[in-house]
């Protein structure tokens, strides 16, 4: 177990290294720089600024410098949000993004799992076709389309809920972004749960359970549910990654002060250190979540032991 966790963490190092390197050079290849504005700065001031942030050095030197700082846990200062370090910005935005993400994944499981289970039990019935049709639509429509539609209908036309803002996490502000963020995951989880439930219901040990004289609900709750959940659990890693990348767009659309919004604005402003900081932070987070999901999987399935 310890061996396995250690191995997985070591394996994460090259992954993160590649992510950091690729995004660093991509970022620097994009035209423009952090201090290009509508108003041209005087040449001396610009030179001064560039020198302060080592932006006058060749890119490979900047890269080495950045990596050196990173190894010491220093994400550097933000170029745009003066007086703030990138670490401070991330720590400010993360609780907001975390709350949004947790609600979204919670909602996705709460709705997606029962949808899939019902569809599997009532396989090839009208209920099944309706559920699966809805899920297919959910998979097909991207969240940057759903989000403005939701805002238009429930925020503008019906005026039930605010169209944006965070308001310190008031529930009324949270409904629309959480729904927009989770719809796609609801659809994926429902489809996956249906498929795995159907497979489990056809297996030999379900036949054994029925031969014992168990009622259908006992067969489903007692015998089919846990094995059918296994594939969904292993999908949680990618699902959370999907929620994170989705939140980048959603936070921007609803004006939520989370990491995602810093990331988009950082990219638009060529705020190199802010973008890099978010990438490294999210990269490490996804690696960690995948590891936790795999460990959770072994808790559900006694046959999985991470000894190798």
């Amino acid at each position, binding site marked *: 177990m310890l061996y396995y966790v250690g191995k997985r963490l070591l394996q994460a190092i090259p992954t993160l290294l590649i992510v950091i390197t690729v995004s660093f050079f991509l970022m620097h290849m994009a035209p423009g720089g952090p201090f290009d504005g509508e108003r041209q700065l005087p040449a001396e001031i610009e030179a001064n600024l560039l020198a302060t942030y080592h932006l006058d050095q060749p890119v490979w030197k900047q890269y080495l410098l950045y990596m050196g700082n990173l190894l010491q846990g220093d994400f550097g200062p933000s170029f745009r949000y003066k007086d703030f370090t990138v670490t401070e910005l991330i720590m400010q935005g993360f609780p907001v993004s975390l709350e949004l993400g947790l609600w979204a994944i919670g909602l996705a499981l709460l709705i997606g799992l029962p949808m899939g289970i019902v569809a599997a039990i009532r396989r090839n019935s009208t209920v099944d076709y309706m559920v699966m049709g809805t899920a297919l639509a959910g998979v097909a429509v991207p969240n940057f389309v759903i989000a403005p539609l939701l805002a238009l209908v429930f925020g503008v036309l019906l005026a039930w809920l605010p169209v944006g803002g965070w308001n310190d996490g008031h529930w009324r502000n949270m409904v629309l972004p959480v729904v927009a963020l989770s719809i796609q995951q609801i659809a994926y989880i429902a489809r996956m749960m249906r498929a795995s439930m159907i497979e489990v219901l056809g297996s030999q040990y379900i*036949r054994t359970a029925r031969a014992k004289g168990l009622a259908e609900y006992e067969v489903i709750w007692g015998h089919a549910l846990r094995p059918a959940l296994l594939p969904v659990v292993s999908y949680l890693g990618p699902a959370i990654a999907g929620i994170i990348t989705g939140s980048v767009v959603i936070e921007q659309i609803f004006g939520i002060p989370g990491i995602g919004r810093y990331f988009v604005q950082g990219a638009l402003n060529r705020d190199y250190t802010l973008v890099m900081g978010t990438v490294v932070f999210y990269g490490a987070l996804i690696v960690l979540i995948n590891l936790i999901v795999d460990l959770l999987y072994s808790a559900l399935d006694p046959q999985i032991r991470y*000894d190798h």
Partner: protein
Amino acid sequence: MTTPLLEIDRLRVDFHLPQGTVSAVKSLDLHIAPGETLALVGESGSGKSISSLAIMRLLPDLAEPSGSIRWHGKRGEEALLDTPLRRMRQIRGNEISMIFQEPMTSLNPLMRIGDQVREVLKKHTSLRGKTADERVIELFEQVGIPEPRRRIASYPYELSGGQRQRVMIAMALACEPKLLIADEPTTALDVTVQAQILRLLKDLQQRYGMAILFITHDLGVVRHFADRVCVMRHGEIVETASTQALFSAPQHPYTRMLIEAEPSGRKAPVDPSLPVLLEARDIKVRFALKKRLFRPSEYFDAVRGIDLDIRRGQTLGIVGESGSGKSTLGRALLRLLESSGDVRFDETDLTHLDGSAMRPIRSRMQVVFQDPFGSLSPRLTVGEIVSEGLRVHYPLLTRREREARVIETLEEVALDPAMRKRYPHEFSGGQRQRIAIARALVLKPEFLLLDEPTSALDRSVQATVIELLRTLQAKHDLTYLFISHDLAVVRALADSVIVMRQGEVVEQGETEALFRSPRDAYTRELMRAAFLDAVS
């Protein structure tokens, strides 16, 4: 005559498929008396398992049973096909229990075995808590699970196949049913384990006074087990008789065919002066089980230093139960997996050859695997499967020449060459095994590794494949390494035998001598179990 426990009259089971309606069971009549053992024997596709599922009302949704199944249980006579499902659930697991063929997959893999048995008690009895636990432990003791107190907390994957089947039996017997339906309960088990399970079922039958409906494809198994036998074919019963009468004077030709399909014939030993084709010295294979950071890693030694010589034209049989290392040894000899020790093939030392140097030799050493369903690519036509080796080893052949070789080979294995345009799923198990043999044969090999080539086949089909292997060997002077757990087949095909257990050779010698007077205790146990006649 006493009232029968179960009476089946004109049972018919139709499957409504998109392509039309198929009758898996056409007209089945049988009755079972209390305490009786009735065997329902038939080959795959005869409808025997479907019939048993119909009794329990466990058929898939597509199936529609008709006719009558009358049960004389705790509530007097009931027509099971018309009983409400609620009442049916009271009968299942309580008055009628069932055990299945696949002990590996019939238990819930995520549930402790004790809980799986306790569940039946909770459903049908008033036993709860400690008293229920005590009953589970008692049942585990009765079915011979060692350390039952500790074992109730085990998961199925921690048990061997035989032990899992014992758990299934404990589960089935928990409520002392009047009828136990055993659907091929020993087919997936090793012979020695099979003998133990059959003995256990007999003992428990006497203790509980229950009737057993024993469903099997293996006529040999029921010989000393059943009181009466029904032989089933194409959804109908062709013959019903007492076991003794059936074996001494079978009436129906199909029954006679089944009895005669037991492997027969012997192979004469080859001249010991013939050259050795394959020579192996001190073959060892070891698999890593656990790798650990601070302590030494754990290994499993699958093959522990085996020497063997196979002469040209010889058939060497390797017998052993699952886990004995016989298949691993076969693969190591063909350099299909990492091993230590020396292998020489026709004077060439294979030990240090790399992939490309091995290639010309590969065409001379071919292999046929057990599973005729898993070992043929479902996306290739039979012609493509058979000709694939030719493309690799004889890239210069033209299309036409390749085609000619494929046709010639298919004819040799008695398949219609016109079938080469079809896909594997369109063929039966026996036909697929012929395709697998054709694939090996097309390269004109000298040496064939046959890894359980007949184990997945019905006895009657098995006999024809054995005959084919014999003919091909004589015609092409082939050398066989024949791996099997089935002693009867090995006895019919091999001229010398190696008995393996836990990666080691326990006994070896010429087939007839070894079968007639086995010296090693394990070999004797294996034979007793395989030829059940010797038990009683």
